[in-house]
Structures are given as structure tokens and as C-alpha cells.
């Protein structure tokens, strides 16, 4: 019984979010097909076909797949399920979160969201209550729709061998929704989801101008920038930097939380990081309970010194 993974991409490049999904899929089956649906996206199919563990690539191209609208992709995915597919998997990025429940409902099966571990063919572990409770879930559905937390599985590597790419028949356009605009935050820094080091700022920074102090530290370390909800709500930085229960869940080697108190909703997004550093002037801040190294100090005093010390 096979796995069908839905690839996330921008029609030119494959998102790295699929690589941990392939690793998870390998624990369930050795027949792994990846569906690349988009517009003019042969290059993506080519990249997928070289991912270690992928046995086949299905390529579906149409102008109305360009923006990966759930209304257009869901019928296409359902049509692929006929052929011996037991698992439908996608990353639990906003792409997967938006799409997969629509697919599950059309198949009349439950979805298992954001898994962090696979116990057996039908039993999975996922987090609930902002990561404070781990639940072991068994499904009785014949088809298992699953989204995978990227930071919980090692990324599959790119191999030399290329698997077969088959073009598939597309489903007709539904036209229920139309793409209107996209504002992509451009950054030369590493991607927050996959960065080795993340430097995050919170309410303690006070305003957008001060948040630049975080950027300086991040650049010294070649790190991605994260933020607490308070910092995003305050307009210090854009929403795509939010780490937490409702933002991104990251697990870098080093996470530096600056001016972040450590609400449970924020901890849910970063507490699986290997090493956590907290800098906060409030010695009672809950973030210190999760930090390996804590510095009780005024961040405006510390950050310039840290910048100098890292530069050495």
C-alpha cells in the first residue's frame, strides 16, 4: 500500500518542507509517489524525482493549479487515491493545513494533523493544547490523511538516482476562488523553518526600530529571525516570523529568545530546540524555565555587547 505526498512549491522551486515528509512516509511504505500540481512546474517534478525514497512523481499541470488553491487541488488529489494509496501526506505548513482537511472531508475520512512521531501503520503521535499534551492517536479509516510537522523528522536527502515522472490527466477547473495578490516577505536570511540558528524578539524590544537590534545579532550568527505574537501584533515585524502555537514550529540547534516572556503559546513553537538561550530583564519570566542558558539583563544593555562579542 502506497503513500501519496502532495508537494509544496512555487512552480519553480521545491519547498524543503517536503523532505521531512518523505522521511516520515518511508516509515509507512516503500512505495512513495509525490504529486506535483502546478503551472509550468516541470523543474519542480525533476527536483522531486531526485529526492531519496521517492519512487514515482505524478505531474499535473494547468493554469488554474498555479496558485495551489485548495478548491482546485482537492478534486485532483482525490482522483489519485484509486490506485492502491493508503496514505495522503503533506507538510503541516500553511499550504498543507489549508489543503488537506478539504481532501479528507471529500473522502469522508478524518485527518491526523501535525504528527511528530509514527508508532505503527495506523498509530501516530501529535501535540495538543499548545504542545503541553502529546496524544497517541489510532485511526480506523482506510485512507489516512496526515500532515507532518517538518521539524520532527530528518529531511530526506537529494540522491543521484531519478525516479519516473508521469504526467497525469488534470481535473476540470472549479473556479470557486480566484487568486488576487501575494505579498512575499523577501529576505536574504535563512528560512525560519529550516535555519540552524534562530534569533527571536518579543515585546521587550518595544518598537519596530529597536527590533533592528535582533537583525544585527541574527546577521552575526547567520540566523533566521523569529518573533513572539506580541512583536508581530505590535507591528515590529511581519506575520511570517511568528513562532508559536499558531505560527511556525521550529526546532533549530540554537534558539535565542530576546525580550520574550515565554507564554505557553510561544513555547509551543520552540521548546524542541536543542539549545535555548533567554535574555530578559524579568528574572521571573517563564522563558527561563525552558532555557539552557539565561541572562537576566536589560536587552538594550546586552545586545550591543553581544554584537561585539560575536564579532570577535
Amino acid at each position, binding site marked *: 500500500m502506497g503513500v501519496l505526498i502532495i508537494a509544496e512549491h512555487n512552480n519553480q522551486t521545491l519547498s524543503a518542507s517536503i523532505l521531512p515528509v518523505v522521511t516520515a512516509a518511508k516509515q509507512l511504505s516503500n512505495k512513495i509517489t509525490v504529486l506535483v500540481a502546478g503551472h509550468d512546474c516541470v523543474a519542480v517534478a525533476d527536483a522531486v524525482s531526485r529526492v531519496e525514497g521517492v519512487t514515482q512523481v505524478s505531474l499535473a499541470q494547468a493554469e488554474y493549479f498555479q496558485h495551489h488553491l485548495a478548491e482546485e487541488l482537492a478534486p485532483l488529489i482525490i482522483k489519485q487515491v484509486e490506485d492502491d494509496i493508503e496514505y495522503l501526506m503533506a507538510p503541516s505548513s500553511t499550504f498543507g493545513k489549508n489543503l488537506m482537511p478539504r481532501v479528507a472531508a471529500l473522502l469522508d475520512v478524518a485527518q491526523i494533523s501535525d504528527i511528530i512521531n509514527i508508532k505503527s501503520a495506523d498509530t501516530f503521535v501529535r501535540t495538543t493544547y499548545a504542545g503541553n499534551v502529546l496524544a497517541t492517536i489510532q485511526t480506523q479509516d482506510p485512507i489516512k490523511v496526515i500532515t507532518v510537522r517538518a521539524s520532527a523528522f530528518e529531511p530526506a536527502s537529494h540522491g543521484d538516482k531519478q525516479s519516473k515522472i508521469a504526467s497525469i490527466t488534470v481535473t476540470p477547473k472549479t473556479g470557486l476562488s480566484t487568486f488576487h*495578490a501575494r505579498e512575499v516577505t523577501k529576505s536574504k536570511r535563512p528560512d525560519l523553518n529550516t535555519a540552524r540558528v534562530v534569533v527571536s524578539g518579543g515585546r521587550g524590544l518595544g518598537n519596530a526600530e529597536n527590533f533592528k537590534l535582533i537583525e544585527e545579532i541574527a546577521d552575526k550568527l547567520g540566523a533566521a529571525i523569529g518573533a513572539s505574537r506580541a512583536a508581530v501584533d505590535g507591528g515590529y515585524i511581519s506575520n511570517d516570523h511568528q513562532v508559536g502555537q499558531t505560527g511556525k514550529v521550529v526546532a533549530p540547534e540554537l534558539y535565542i529568545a530576546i525580550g520574550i516572556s515565554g507564554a505557553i503559546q510561544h513555547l509551543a513553537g520552540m521548546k524542541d530546540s536543542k539549545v535555548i538561550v533567554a535574555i530578559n530583564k524579568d528574572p521571573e519570566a517563564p522563558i527561563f524555565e525552558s532555557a539552557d542558558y539565561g541572562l537576566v539583563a536589560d536587552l538594550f544593555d546586552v545586545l550591543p555587547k553581544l554584537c561585539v562579542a560575536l564579532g570577535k
Partner: protein
Amino acid sequence: MKVLVAVKRTVDANIHVRVKQDGSGVEDANIKMGINPFCEIAIEEALRLKEANMANEVVVVSVGSKVCEDVLRHGLAMGADRGILMETDQPLQPLSIAKVLSSVIHTESPDLVIMGKQSIDGDNNQTGQMLSALLGWPQGTFASKLDLQNNQIFVTREVDDGLETLALSLPAVVTTDLRLNQPRYLSLPNIMNARKKTINVLNVDDLNIDIKSRLRTLEVHEPPKRSGGVKLNSVEELVDKLRNEARVI
């Protein structure tokens, strides 16, 4: 235009939940409960549409046991016109909730459904998408801005690399993200006033819908606690530890 808002009763967002000793679930006795924060944002947005004369009725719906009336009253106190409780004592999963809501929608025929993107207990982030699939409607998930124009709704969505705006034909389902709005506080007169508003109670068992659970929770446990770290005295010490002890920079 009629707007229907689906709301869920959850544990209060500031409560740190504990797992029961036997691992069968979380401690729910004497825990402060309330409206799921994302659902409150959904009600607020519906009310703003009404106050801008773009909607004429806001109906709040909840699926659950009798106690869920309190979150419906919360919605009514915010300003919703009436409530519907789809009563059941079974804990329902997202697919079943979507099916129950879809049956309510067939009766109520709203032009727009607004609901939270996820509940802070299950963290599933599924019900809105499932509901729109069952209805064959478009979906606008993780919304941070809505703009209603001529039988179309423009939904700005918070996505991983920024913001995306979609145009949806109505009727549609929209799920709310945190930055869509700041919900209003309840005033005492409005709380009193809400007591006079109607809540219709219907029994889920009368609907003839398959709400059998497909998923079984075998066990729950708390994640391993991080061992408390050390407090350092200076930046130099911190950089030294990161370089020579943790070896991460």
C-alpha cells in the same frame, strides 16, 4: 446578508492543562472554560460587517453539550442576534462537527460562515476547511483581513512566506487568524440583554448524521520537561558557553 459564526467552548487560553494520572485524558474538573479565542475573533468580524450595514443578521452556533450555551451567551452579549446549540454529549471530532454544521447551514442558508482557524485544545485546524468541502463552497483560511464587495469576498490570508489575497464567490467559509481584529469587551448591559435573546436547542441524534469517531486516543502524556538551565552573569560568559560548552556557534 446573513452571517453564521461557529463557536467552540474550550479551556481558557491561560490555563496550563495537566494530564490525568492514568493517561486517559486531561484534567477537566474545575478548570476555567470559555470561548475559543479564534471563535471570539470570528464573532467580532461578523458584528463589524453588521455594523457596517453589510450584514443584517449574525447567528452563533455551537456543537456540544448543554454547557456550551455559555459560549453562545458570550456571542449574544457581544452582539449576535440569536444562537443555535446542536446538543450532544459525545465529544465530536472535526469531521463530525463539520457534518453537523453543514446540516445547520442547509436549514439556515447563510451567505457567509466565519469560524476560528483552530481550537486551542485540539489544535487540529480542520473544521472550516472540512465544512467548505462538504458544502462545495470556497474557503478563505487564516484570514487577517476581509473585504466584502458585490457578492465577492476578498480574504487576505496569513501564509508561511507572507500574505496572500484570494477572491471568493459567496457563499463561502472564512477561518480567522489572530490579527483579523481585536474582539470587544462585554458590557454589563449587553450581558443582561443577551439573556433575553433566543437560543434554539436541537439534538444532534435527531439529524441522522454519521458522527462515529474514526480516531481513538490511545493515551496522552506530557512532553519531557526540559531540565532547568543555568543563569549566567555576563555576555562574555554566554558567548563562551555557546562556543565551548554547547558548541553551537
